[in-house]
């Protein structure tokens, strides 16, 4: 048994790529060992992979030194077969004709060859494997370098590859890969070690490197940073703001990490703490600290890669850099406040939301309408004026300097600026939180004005984008439509909102088209050549007076011959209007052609609801069973019904009723039964079922009307005993046709009664 060490040394590997590189190295090594027939010997515990910025290392313990000899037999053509066939067999197996054996197979003389594969030295297998690993190594981005790069075919690596150690039990595995000769030497820390250092084997590798000021185990470096930063903060009487991503990144930037705490000027704490933390983290990879009360402290922790002669010098250099960054942040913070959010919001006219949907200013207009409507309709119990105000300002921070520098701060900065302006707290909170929930587990808004803006924003994005790009396909979700849908569902459920998607769809599409018609008319009027007149404006005003909807006006203007379709798209393209007016009409058209997509949208929501509810343990077939009834576009009501249904089908009554339902439905389906409405005097079991239905049907209907779905289910439960008895006592397939018809009718009535609560045919089991 032998231990193998492989080190691939290179110039600094980006920190973010090191984890993937370790996985890649392990995967390729296993692939090669499997191919060489010694894969089974490499158990996971015997394989160690390490990385530093300047090296990838792999240690495999317990490899055999030689593979076992293999004897293989191959059966060839029968004796007397054409020469061509026999020669082909020889060629394939690399043997001469003389070497073939002849054996009898089922009475026929047949050629055989015996191939002896002797055991191979593992060192030879490794020597072949190493260039293959290097060649096939996949990096997110790779490059060529040096003299060899005069050809585009030269090796690509993440950064120049500079050395290979390959040692099997201390012996060099001789390899020449891409001009690099393997050996037993490497280099230590860039500054604390000089020249080459010799490695005697896998066992001493980490120790030899440690003596040369390199901690090769990335997890050990991460632990040093994690603990060191914590201690440095504690020593200063502060608490570290933990950030595991930063720990890993710094471990990927250092071979000898030394966390060092520094201070910055107290004055900088005037800017929002999030900006300080972000500047420190993103630009400088520093940790930040808090006071015991949770407020941000004027301290940072950088991770040096040297055991500095005087750490204070390093800290002071870093302090200056951070101070310059924080000055920039403060400059942005102050500059942004020289304009009100309303003034900033004008800049949104220059930002495209989606090329087919117009600018962010257009979006804001739609969101403001929708947020106001949500409040006015009482769907959200918020003040309509505040909701509209917040919606109009919610995207303004996108054009501020601070968000330009740190896009992650969108929303948050708007909230700060609104508060600084002295806007109502409901407005500033709504601006701050309207992107929430950003993902599963994120806080869901509950403040009414925030709920209105957040919901309006997401509904607008989802529905508008659905209109022009359709639903996301596969695993891709470039416009975050799935996330928007989940955010909408979570917000509705958390706040128990009663919202008709159809109503939102109508309102949104109508106002979107109307907004664009308005813009088109205004552009025409504003165009100097038109001297305040606009044919389109006049057309629109006339039709408005008729009471025509924006969609009708659009259709009649663009395609008076018929509905909107591709033909009318060409028509739009030909419209002789000003460029802006034409763009507006085109955007209106994009909404217009999708005005019939409500049903698709509701299906999309149903799918998202299933995904969301799966984690909560709600069965997707029950969601289908309720959706299949059709006409339901209120997702909260739908979910309440699903919950009641799930509770019911899990009871004994429910299970039996489902069985009864399925039996009845199957019979009816087989018969392709249509009600005959025959008169007949029922037997007792039939009478009992009729009586039960007479009682249950109105009860269920009333309960559903009152959205008391549990009561609807218990009304159904009352049918369980009668249907069971019916199937026990009554023969449906009676000889007399009218009796049979009456019984089938009764079953149909039973089925329909159940159906009014949920489509039980969709329920599994």
């Amino acid at each position: 048994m032998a231990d193998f060490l492989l080190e691939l040394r290179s110039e600094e590997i980006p920190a973010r790529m090191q984890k993937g590189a370790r996985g890649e190295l392990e995967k390729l090594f296993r692939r090669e060992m499997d191919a060489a027939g010694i894969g089974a010997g490499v158990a996971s515990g015997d394989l160690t992979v390490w990385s530093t910025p300047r090296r990838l290392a792999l240690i495999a313990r317990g490899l055999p030194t030689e593979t076992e000899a293999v004897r293989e037999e191959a059966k060839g053509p029968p004796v007397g077969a054409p020469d061509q066939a026999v020669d082909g067999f020889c060629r394939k197996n690399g043997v001469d004709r003389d070497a073939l054996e002849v054996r009898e197979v089922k009475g026929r003389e047949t050629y055989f060859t015996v191939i002896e594969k002797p055991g191979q030295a593992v060192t030879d297998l490794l020597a072949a494997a190493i260039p293959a690993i290097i060649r096939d190594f996949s990096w997110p981005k790779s490059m060529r370098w040096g003299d060899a790069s005069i050809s585009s075919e030269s090796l690509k690596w993440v950064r120049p590859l500079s050395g290979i150690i390959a040692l099997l039990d201390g012996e060099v595995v001789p390899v020449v890969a891409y001009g690099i000769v393997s050996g037993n030497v490497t280099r230590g820390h860039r500054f604390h070690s000089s020249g080459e250092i010799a490695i005697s084997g896998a066992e001493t590798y980490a120790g030899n490197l440690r003596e040369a000021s390199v901690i090769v185990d990335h997890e050990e470096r991460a632990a040093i940073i994690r603990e060191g930063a914590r201690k440095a903060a504690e020593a200063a009487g502060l608490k570290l703001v933990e950030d595991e991503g930063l720990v890993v990144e710094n471990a990927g930037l250092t071979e000898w990490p030394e966390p060092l705490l520094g201070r910055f000027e107290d004055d900088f704490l005037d800017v929002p703490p999030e900006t300080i933390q972000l500047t420190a983290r993103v630009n400088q990879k520093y940790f930040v600290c808090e006071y015991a009360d949770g407020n941000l402290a004027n301290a940072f922790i950088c991770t040096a890669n040297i055991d500095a002669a005087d750490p204070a010098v390093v800290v002071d250099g870093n302090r200056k850099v951070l101070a310059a960054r924080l000055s920039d942040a403060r400059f942005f913070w102050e500059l942004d406040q020289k304009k009100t959010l309303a003034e900033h919001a004008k800049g949104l006219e220059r930002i495209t939301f989606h090329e087919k949907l117009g600018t962010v200013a257009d979006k804001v207009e739609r969101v403001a309408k929708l947020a106001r409507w949500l409040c006015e309709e009482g769907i959200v119990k918020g003040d309509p004026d505040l909701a509209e105000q917040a919606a109009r300002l919610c995207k303004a921070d996108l054009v501020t300097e601070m968000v330009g520098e740190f896009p992650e701060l969108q929303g948050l900065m708007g909230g700060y600026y609104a508060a600084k302006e002295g806007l109502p707290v409901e407005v500033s909170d709504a601006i701050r939180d309207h992107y929430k929930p950003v993902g599963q587990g994120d806080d869901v808004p509950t403040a009414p004005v925030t709920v209105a803006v957040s919901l309006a924003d997401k509904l607008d994005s989802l529905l508008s984008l659905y209109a022009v790009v359709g639903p996301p396909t596969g695993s891709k979700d470039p416009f975050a439509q799935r996330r928007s849908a989940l955010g909408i569902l979570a917000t509705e459920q958390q706040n128990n909102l009663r919202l008709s998607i159809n109503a939102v769809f109508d309102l949104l599409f109508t106002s979107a088209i109307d907004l664009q018609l308005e813009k088109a008319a205004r552009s025409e009027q504003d165009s100097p050549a038109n001297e305040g007149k606009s044919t389109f404006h006049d057309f629109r005003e006339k039709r408005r007076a008729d009471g025509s909807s924006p969609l009708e006006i659009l259709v009649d203007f663009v395609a008076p011959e018929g509905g909107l379709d591709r033909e009318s798209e060409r028509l739009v393209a030909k419209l002789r209007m000003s460029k802006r007016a034409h763009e507006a009409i085109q955007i209106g058209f994009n909404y217009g052609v999708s005005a019939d997509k409500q049903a698709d949208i509701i299906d999309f929501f149903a799918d998202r609801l299933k995904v969301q509810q799966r984690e909560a343990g709600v069965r997707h077939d029950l969601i289908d069973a309720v959706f299949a009834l059709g006409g339901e576009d209120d997702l909260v009501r739908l979910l309440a019904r699903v919950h009641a249904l799930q509770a019911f089908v899990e009871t004994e009554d429910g299970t039996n009723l489902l069985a009864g339902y399925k039996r009845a439905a199957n019979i009816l389906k087989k018969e392709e039964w249509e009600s005959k409405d025959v008169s007949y005097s029922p037997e007792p079991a039939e009478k009992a079922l009729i009586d039960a239905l007479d009682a249950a049907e109105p009860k269920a209907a009333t309960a559903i009307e009152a959205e008391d779905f549990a009561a609807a289910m218990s009304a159904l439960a009352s049918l369980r005993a009668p249907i069971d008895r019916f199937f026990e006592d009554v023969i449906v397939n009676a000889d007399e046709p009218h009796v049979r018809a009456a019984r089938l009718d009764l079953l149909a009535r039973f089925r329909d009664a159940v159906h009014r609560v949920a489509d039980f045919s969709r329920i599994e089991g």
Partner: protein
Amino acid sequence: MESEVKTASSESPVLQRDPTRSFQDMILTLHDFWSANGCVILQPYDMRMGAGTFHTATTLRALGPEPWNAAFVQPCRRPTDGRYGENPNRLQHYYQYQVILKPSPSDIQELYLDSLKAIGVDPLKHDIRFVEDDWESPTLGAWGLGWEVWCDGMEVTQFTYFQQMGGFDCKPVAGELTYGLERLAMYIQGVDSVYDLAFNQHGVSYGDVFLENEKQMSKANFEVFDTDLLFKKFEMAEAECRNQIANDVPIAAYEEAIEASHIFNLLQARGVISVQERASYMGRVRDLARGSCEKYAELKAPEWAEKYPEWSLL
């Protein structure tokens, strides 16, 4: 007073060169260092440009198979970075020190670190790091991989292995080092404002040399340049570039591309280019720069291919 004109030799003591105490000594030290390491020491390109990378010694020489090692200071113009001389870190005109080594030598990182030591940065006292930073210039149809080099958390150098230039693979790859001279000097001299840098050892500061320029040029860039003329100049440069390309003079064409690029930057500073137009102007500059590079490469390719049989343009 016997004479109104003082001469340096008669009045001042002769001082030893010290890169830690004077901006110009730092530059001279870098010149010595890279000269000793085989570089051609060039003078700045005599045109206004946004970065040393625009210098033909970088762009055009990155094309083709011939070895090329050069170092030079290039003044860079970033009109939108002007702050009227009021910001200690931002300038509309500053210096880059460019080194281009082709093919990239295997000890390029060590050479670079030695150059830092030469100008007084001790890597056992200061934390030097190579942090991932890839470079891309759509304008030049160029990209490369490399790092920004940090010194105690401050970016002091951009270190790039050119992979493509003008849309062509770099064969061989060149290593490009771009030192930010002012910030490096501020660091080495330990001053907080660029204007406080000692330019020489005889009491002349960076502010003495450039503060007035920053004030006037910031005003010109942001407020004064006649935008109608700028638009015309842009179109003239564009037309001249095409004329030179059509007549197989790619170096002259490339100069016009540099000119157009700078005019575009001035138009940006004047705030007359909308977000939508911006992309279109950048596309126009890109077409000029790439067109020039392509013409240069095509023109030289037969000669290169003859000298280097293992090389091919594509």
